[in-house]
C-alpha cells in the first residue's frame, strides 16, 4: 500500500467536498478577485499621482496577487485540517493506516489546489481590466509563487497545531495570524520604509525577501539571487519547524486523548 495513494485519498476527500458545493469554489476565487480589482483601481489612481508607482505599472496589483498566494496557501492548509475537525473525521483517520505526515502532505497538496483555484482567476482578470499581466514576470513569478505558498504552509501548519492542541476555539487564528506578518512583509512598500529596529525582524521573514525581489524584477533589475536564497533558506527552516510542531502536537494529542470526540 503506497503512501502516495493515502495522500491522494486525503486530497480526494476534500475534492469531493468542493465538487459537491460550487459556492465553495466560487468563494475561493471571489475574494482574491475583489481584492485585485480594488487595488487595481487604486493603482491606476496612484499611477497618475505618484512617479514611483507610474514607473512600475502593476506593482501594487502584482503585490496584492502574490500576497493572496500566501494568504490562500495558509488557509488551504488550515481549512483542510479544520474540515476534518468540523466533520469529526479525525478519529476515523487516526485509526486508519494514514500516517500523520501523510495527512500533512495531503493538506499541503490541497493548499496548492485551493490557492491555484483562488488566485489564478484574479491574475487572469487583471489582464483585460488593467492591461497588466503578472505572467509577464516569467520564471521569477513561479519562484515567488512557490516561496509565498510555502510561507503560507508554515503558518497553516502552525495554526493546525494550535487548533489540534486547543480545540476549535483557536480556529480564528487561521485568518488572524497571517495579518500580524503583513506589516513586516513589505508587500506594498520597501522594507527600508520600516523603522530601523523593525527591519531585522522583517528580514527574518521569507515574504519580505520575496516582495523585495518582486519589486526588483518589476523595476527591470532582474532576479536578485541573494533575496531568493534568503527566502528559500528561511522557508525551509520555517516549514520544517512548523511541520515538526504539528507532528509533535499530534503525538501530544494521542497522549492527552485529544483525537477522541473532536468536533464542533
Amino acid at each position: 500500500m503506497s503512501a502516495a495513494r493515502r495522500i491522494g485519498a486525503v486530497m480526494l476527500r476534500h475534492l469531493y467536498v468542493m465538487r459537491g458545493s460550487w459556492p465553495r469554489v466560487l468563494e475561493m476565487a471571489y475574494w482574491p478577485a475583489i481584492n485585485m480589482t480594488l487595488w487595481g483601481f487604486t493603482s491606476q489612481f496612484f499611477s497618475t499621482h505618484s512617479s514611483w508607482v507610474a514607473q512600475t505599472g502593476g506593482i501594487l496589483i502584482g503585490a496584492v496577487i502574490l500576497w493572496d498566494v500566501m494568504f490562500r496557501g495558509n488557509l488551504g492548509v488550515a481549512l483542510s485540517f479544520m474540515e476534518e475537525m468540523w466533520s469529526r473525521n479525525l478519529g476515523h483517520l487516526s485509526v486508519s493506516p494514514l500516517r500523520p505526515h501523510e495527512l500533512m502532505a495531503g493538506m499541503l497538496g490541497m493548499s496548492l489546489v485551493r490557492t491555484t483555484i483562488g488566485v489564478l482567476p484574479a491574475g487572469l482578470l487583471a489582464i483585460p481590466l488593467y492591461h497588466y499581466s503578472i505572467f509577464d514576470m516569467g520564471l521569477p513569478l513561479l519562484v515567488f509563487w512557490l516561496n509565498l505558498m510555502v510561507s503560507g504552509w508554515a503558518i497553516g501548519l502552525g495554526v493546525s497545531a494550535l487548533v489540534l492542541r486547543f480545540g476549535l476555539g483557536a480556529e480564528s487564528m487561521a485568518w488572524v495570524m497571517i495579518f500580524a506578518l503583513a506589516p513586516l512583509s513589505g508587500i506594498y512598500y520597501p522594507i527600508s520604509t520600516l523603522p530601523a529596529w523593525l527591519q531585522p525582524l522583517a528580514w527574518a521573514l521569507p515574504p519580505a525577501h520575496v516582495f523585495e525581489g518582486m519589486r526588483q524584477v518589476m523595476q527591470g533589475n532582474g532576479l536578485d539571487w541573494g533575496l531568493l536564497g534568503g527566502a528559500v533558506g528561511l522557508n525551509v527552516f520555517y516549514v520544517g519547524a512548523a511541520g515538526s510542531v504539528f507532528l509533535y502536537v499530534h503525538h501530544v494529542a494521542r497522549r492527552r486523548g485529544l483525537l477522541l470526540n473532536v468536533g464542533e
Partner: protein
Amino acid sequence: MSIRKRMRRRRRVELDQGRPAPHSLGMTQPAIVVDNLRKSFSGQVAVDDISFTIAAGSTTALLGGNGAGKTTTISMLLGLLLPDSGTIRVLGEDMVRHRYRVLPRLNFSSPYVELPHRLTVAENLTVYGHLYGIPRLKQRIAELACELELTDILKRPAGKLSAGQKTRVALAKAMLNRPDILLLDEPTASLDPDTADWVRGFFQDYQRKSGATILLASHNMAEVERLCDQVLMMKQGKLVDRGSPQDLLGRYGRDDLEQVFLDIARDRRQPLVES
C-alpha cells in the same frame, strides 16, 4: 422474499461452499494481549492496571457502566490514545511502537464517530478504500453495498441518512479491508430491534466466515449473550470480572447478564464461585 432474507441466504450459501476466509490468522497466538495497562487524565485514573488476553477468532465483550473505562481501553487498543504504562500487543505487534503494521488489518465502527456528512456514501467508501489500500475498490464497494443493502443510498450524502442507514454505512467502512480484528463501540445503539438483530447476524456471519476477532463494547446484554465467547467486566477503570456468559451466569447465580451487570455495578452480590 425480502432483500434481507435473500442476503442471509446468499451468505449461508457462501459458507456452505466453504469460501476461504479473507485472511488466515495464526490461531496459535492470541489476537490481543494487554498487560498492566494504565491511563489517567489530569490525575483521574480512567484505566487502572488491567490485563487480559483475547483469543484469535473469538468474540469478546467489554462491559461496564458509563465511565468504566471501556472507550479509553478501546482507544488505546486502536492506538488512538497512548497508555501511561503497560503494553498492548495486537496480532503480535506492539501497538505503541508499531501500530502502522497492524492498522491495515484492523477496523473500527462506532455510531459516535461519524463519517464526513457532506460526502456521499460512495465517496466516503472510496476515500477510506484508498486509505486502506483496497485492490479493485469499485468491486469491493459494490459487494459491500449489496451485502449491507446500501445500493440505493450510495449517492446520498452521509449526513442525510437515518440512524440505521448510518450504522450500515459505518459497517461497510469497517468491512472494507476485511479486518482480522474488528473493534465495535456499541454497534447497535439507537437501532430498531429488527435492524439491530440484522446487524448482529451480520457480525456472526462475518466472524464465522473470516475467523476474525471481534471486541465490542455494549450495553445490550442480550446482544452480548448472543455474540460473545468471553466477557470482560469493567468498573471504575478496573477489570472486576471475566469469563464466558455462561460462566458468569453460573457464578453469580443469575438467569441473564443484565442481572450480573447490575450485581457488579451496584456491588449487590459477590460471585457465588470465585473466578
